[in-house]
Structures are given as structure tokens and as C-alpha cells.
């Protein structure tokens, strides 16, 4: 019964809308689909969307793991507040985040005014897009890695040290293998979220074709032309790429579980 319920629910919430997407773009045929996919403008937008998302997710993995580690292992005043702050990007409307980041990083903003004389432009460039994506992706990494870290007891590290492991070896040989599946999940979530992000990016991106135009904007542009089929075609292409990448990440995850045992 629970299986039936799960399937019914998934069908209603996820599969039917996705089927609609595929159905609508299918009317374009393979040739039309290929034409959309290989259009230089689409290719560029996809490159920017997936490129910035990848960079943002990688940065989030590095710093998200560090943030999680500090929150789990260190006790300091204000820890609970900082722990709560990590969730803010989840709760904040993305448009608000985008406008706030643009205000900070534009050339008269608090941060932008110091970077501008150095010739560093953040707002209205792909760098700005990446920063917005880092912002919205951080909690995904922290929140997936944190509970797994809490399971690792301090004695494990101490045992490694008594057996003669250096700090570096403890991290790479003892701690990271157990954390890898969780880190990969966090990476996948942050990445998937970033690829589809529109609200926060649109304000900081600049939206110049071939330079800072993201794929979701291209979808909105197609809709603006009342070209529903073109819009769904780009969406379907993004879906295929995302699905392939998530599938590969899942495979790596399964492999690392087998390799390192069931740490999660």
C-alpha cells in the first residue's frame, strides 16, 4: 500500500509535469530538437549555466564541508545562531537574495566599490552568477554532510593518531572516505539546484547574450515570444543533461559506498 501511495504521489507531483514537458517538446521532432540544441546561443547559455553551477557546487563542497566540520566539532559562543544562519538561503526568496547581492557587488556597493578600482567586476558578469549560485547552494552541502559528521566519534580520530597517522592522513584516509557519499549527495543537490536557478541570478547576471545569459533566461525569452515548444525544448535538453550528471554522481556514490563500506 505504501508503495502504491508513493508511486501515485510521485506520478502526480513529478512524473506528470515532466511527461508534459517531454510531450510538448516531442512535437518538435529530433531534427527540431537538434536545431535548438546546437544553436550557438543555446550552447553558450547551457555552457554558462552548467559551468557556473559546477564551479559554485565545487566551491560549496570545499567550504560547506569546512563549515559543517566547525559546527559539529567546535563549541563557541553563537554557534547555534550561525547554525541557523546556514539555512537562510533556503528561506530567503531568491529574488531578494539576487537584489541584495547585486546591491553589494555593483560598483557602488559595499563590496563592489573596493573591487572596482582593482579592475575586478563581479556584478553583471559570470563571476556574479557564480556568487549567487554559491549563496543558494551552501545549505545543501552543509545540511547533508553535517548529520554524517555527527556520527563520526572523536575516538576514531584519536585512534588514528595513536596508530601514527598524521593530521593529513587522518583526514584523507579516515574521515573523508566515510563522508564521501554524503559530500557527493550535497554536491549533486547544490549543483542541480544551481542549474535551474532563475530568481537570484537574473538580477546579478547582466543577461548579455553569449556573455552572461543563463539557459533559464533563454526559456523565459522563448515564452515571451509565445514559443512554448521552443521553451520546452531547451528545458528538455537541460533535463537530459542534469539527469545524466545526477545519474553518474549516483553511480560514483554507489561505488564509493561499496569501496569504503556503509558509512552513511
Amino acid at each position, binding site marked *: 500500500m505504501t508503495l502504491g501511495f508513493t508511486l501515485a504521489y510521485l506520478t502526480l507531483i513529478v512524473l506528470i509535469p515532466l511527461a508534459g514537458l517531454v510531450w510538448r517538446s516531442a512535437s518538435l521532432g529530433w531534427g527540431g530538437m537538434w536545431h535548438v540544441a546546437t544553436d*550557438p546561443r543555446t550552447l553558450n547559455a547551457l555552457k554558462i549555466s552548467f559551468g557556473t553551477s559546477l564551479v559554485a557546487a565545487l566551491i560549496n563542497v570545499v567550504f560547506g564541508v569546512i563549515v559543517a566540520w566547525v559546527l559539529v566539532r567546535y563549541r563557541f559562543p553563537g554557534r547555534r545562531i550561525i547554525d541557523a544562519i546556514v539555512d537562510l538561503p533556503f528561506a530567503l526568496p531568491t529574488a531578494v537574495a539576487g537584489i541584495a547581492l547585486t546591491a553589494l557587488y555593483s560598483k557602488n556597493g559595499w563590496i563592489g566599490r573596493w573591487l572596482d578600482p582593482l579592475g575586478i567586476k563581479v556584478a553583471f558578469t559570470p563571476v556574479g552568477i557564480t556568487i549567487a549560485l554559491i549563496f543558494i547552494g551552501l545549505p545543501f552541502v552543509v545540511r547533508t554532510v553535517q548529520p554524517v559528521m555527527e556520527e563520526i566519534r572523536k575516538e576514531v580520530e584519536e585512534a588514528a593518531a595513536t596508530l601514527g597517522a598524521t593530521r593529513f592522513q587522518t583526514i584523507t584516509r579516515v574521515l573523508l572516505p566515510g563522508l564521501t557519499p554524503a559530500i557527493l549527495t550535497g554536491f549533486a543537490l547544490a549543483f542541480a539546484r544551481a542549474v535551474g536557478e532563475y530568481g537570484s541570478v537574473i538580477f546579478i547576471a*547582466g543577461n548579455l547574450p553569449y556573455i552572461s545569459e543563463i539557459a533559464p533566461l533563454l526559456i523565459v525569452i522563448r515564452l*515571451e515570444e*509565445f514559443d512554448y515548444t521552443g521553451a520546452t525544448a531547451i528545458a528538455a535538453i537541460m533535463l537530459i543533461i542534469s539527469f545524466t550528471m545526477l545519474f553518474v554522481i549516483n553511480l560514483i556514490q554507489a561505488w564509493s559506498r561499496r569501496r569504503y563500506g556503509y558509512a552513511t
Partner: protein
Amino acid sequence: MKHSRITLSLAAALFAATVSFQSLSAAQADTTLLNVSYDPTRELYKDYNAAFAAKWKADTGETLTIQTSHGGSGAQARSVIDGLDADVVTLALESDISAIVKATKKINPDWRTKYPHNSAPYTSTIVFLVRKGNPKGIKDWGDLVKDGVEVITPNPKTSGGARWNYLAAWAWAYGQYGGDEAKIKDYISNLFQHVPVLDSGARGSTTTFAQRELGDVLLAWENEAYLASDEFGADKFDIIVPPQSILAEPPVAVVDGNVDAKGTRKVAEAYLQYLYSAEGQTIAAKHFYRPSDPKLVPADLLKKLPELKLVTIDDPIFGGWAKAQPYHFGDGGTFDQIYKPKK
């Protein structure tokens, strides 16, 4: 067995909720009007709705609730296509209403002849908003492509206002280069080289220019330019009216399919007709829209809307929206061409 009982009670609860919701809306339906409009008309229709509701009450004794929905003109048209129950649409572009006509047949194809002046009760134009004192000396469209000038305009693909900007620049270049299309495209291409950010909507561009202090000149709706200088302080900006610009005719239409289903045709038609009255025209002028019948408006309100040469969309340069929309802004249109990287 237990499973089906739960389903049954759930269905019953849903049914009850639907019924009570419907009876609730039925009680109010005869006095509610939904106007689906575009972004910069927020302030205009707030005043106008209050004025019309008062008049309707005085004439018929009915209490009228008018709701307005605002957003990008194209997105609003899509909502109506997808089933939003609008009684009237007051959008930025004729082509957006045409899209509703084509997709749903809910609006009669002859809607443009229903009201005077091609169903455009007020018009507007595109002007330049520059920094105080006009330090870059921007007076005309040709000045926009001078070295070191940064121009702020939204993306013509996503913003109705930006399309008027684009066409106004095109019309100027058409006159300047005697209709030589290659030279016009060069000018437009050069112009967009001077654009550092393409916001998705007109309000976004205003923010970029006024708050982020990006760019030397903002191409804006006349009413939006006055609103920005009111909002951010008249001591920060000057409004420059170029010698020539474009006549933007934001059209209005009754959504026939919806009003006939809801029985609101009479009030919907009266609502749009009243826009052409002395009071409607005066409210439009107060919000810096150009009234289609200026004789009905006190002269002091017109002073801020100076005379200039205005090219219309039906001019042979463009040949009407039905032609201009796909030619300039369709997939692969002139706007796409100027951004194609040179090979």
C-alpha cells in the same frame, strides 16, 4: 478496505471545500472586475479604479470591486491565454493582445476598432533619463553611441518597454541613414555595444540606473522617467526629450469570452470607455501618460509632456506590429542578428 475509506473521506472533504469556495465566489461575482495590465500602470490604475468604482456606484448603485494584476506584458498575456479570468486587458503591446486573440479566440479579432484611437486611450513615448546636468551632453539618439557613453535599457526579448526603445532607435537611424538597412543595423549593433546590462524588465533597468548608478543614460517610458525622478529625487536626474521618438500605444480590450461567461460585459465595456472621458484622460495625464484627447485635460498637466516628432508602429518603416514583432524580436530577428558573434 481501510485504504478506500480514507480516500472516500478525503474526496468528500475536497468536494465540500470546492463547493463552499464556489458559493463564496458566486456571491461576489456580479460586482468584481479583473483588469490584467502591465508593470508601469500600477499607479495609474490604482487612481483610475477608485474613480471608476465611485462613478459606477453613483450611476447604478452597484458596489464594484476592481482588481488589477500587474507584471511583464508578455507574461500577463500568457496568463490570460492559460486561463486567467480577466474581464479586460490593458497591455503594453498590440502584439500581446493579438497573441491572446490567436491562441484562445477569447477576444474578437476586430478589437482594435472597438474604441477610438486604435483602442489606445493614452499613449506614451520613449525619452532619455540622464544624470543631473547631463555631463555627457546627450541630446539625440546619435549621442548614445559616442565613446564612453553607457546606455541602460532592458532586454527587448523580455520587456515590452525595451521593444519600444529598440524601435525608437531604429526609427531615428532610418531617417538618419535614408533607410539603408545595413547602416541602421550597424547603428543598432553599436548602440547595444554600449549596453552593459540587459535587465529583464523596465523596472529592473530603472533600478540599475538609479540605484546601482550604472550607465549615463536610461532609455525609459516617459511616465517611468518622471516616476524615477520623483522617487529618487529630481536633483539627481534630468529628463531629456529627443527631437524624435516613437508613439507607443498601449492598447486595451474587453476579453469577450470571459465577460460573456461571467456576465460582466456591460461593466467591462463601461470601464474601458470611461478611460476616454475627461476624468479618465486627466488621471492618465497626471501619471504622465499622453492623453489621446488632450482637449479634455487641463492645460497645466500637458506642460510636462512636450511636443516632439513621433513615429508610429504603423509607419511604413515598421509596417505594424504583426510585421515588426517577428522581424525584429522573433527568433533570429534583427535583435538576435546584432548579437551574433562575428565569424
